[in-house]
């Protein structure tokens, strides 16, 4: 099965890198949508269904924390698993974002296998 994923990050090169890493990892991607902040991501989600969301924290307009709050408050969208990708590996931050509704957390730097494993875990993909 191939999956539809949304990447929310204000850095175009980071979005390109994440997409490349997903492909390098062997994770089956059927469609990849991109947004430069939480608001753009929510707009995309109003017209496109995705299986998983990968989001940065520090973004303009609507940041990652507010994006998670709005996802959790939306009955249509709250079931979509969101994974945070961040440089911040402090316990306080991870706990805070998981409490806001994040289903996974990947700390930069990461290897492709780590991102794939987190995607598969949150999507409930059975292990090989």
């Amino acid at each position, binding site marked *: 099965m191939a999956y539809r994923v949304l990447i929310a990050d204000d*850095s*175009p*090169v*980071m979005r*390109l*890198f994440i997409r*490349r890493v997903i492909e390098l990892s062997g994770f089956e991607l059927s469609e990849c949508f991109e947004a430069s902040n939480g608001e753009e991501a929510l707009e995309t989600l109003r017209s496109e269904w995705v299986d998983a969301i990968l989001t940065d924290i*520090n973004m303009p307009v609507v940041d990652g924390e507010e994006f998670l709050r709005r996802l959790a408050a939306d009955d249509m969208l709250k079931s979509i698993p969101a994974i945070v990708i*961040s*440089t*911040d*590996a*402090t*316990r*306080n*931050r991870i706990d805070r974002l998981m409490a806001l509704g994040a289903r996974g957390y990947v*700390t*930069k*730097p*990461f*290897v492709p296998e780590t991102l794939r494993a987190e995607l598969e875990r949150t999507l409930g993909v059975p292990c090989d």
Partner: protein
Amino acid sequence: MTEQSIDTALAESVQEVLEKMFFIDLLDPVGDGPPPMGIAAELMFDGDPPGSFRLDLDVPAARSAAADFLGEDAEELSVEQLNEVVCELANMICGSVLSRIESKATIRLSKPVIVSAAEQTQGPAGASFQAALGSGLLRAEIRMERPVCLGIDEYES
């Protein structure tokens, strides 16, 4: 936390970020010498303590790193892409260092900005790490406004 352990955290962070995210093997550290003069990115951070981080790369080093990061031909990269990748690299190294030395604090990084490579950051020098990268040099420096309060045992655990 001692100055030596901040040096270690900085060196380990540079190596780990380049190895995992840029697919670049371990770098050979270069002792003190003239800093790279190409592209420089700087960011500020809040935390305990707050401070700033600066990353300098020679243009060939930046081009080589950006090509590895994006999986594209080095010669086809735009100046904008080079700048964005250097900013991302600065963000990741700084976040990695702070997560190692301030693991129990809440940290907040400002958005990295490109600064003049010729204009050095004012104030007392911080911990730095300089290494060869491709056909150029990379230099990372972290400055803290006051000493970190954690004990060495907490850092090592």
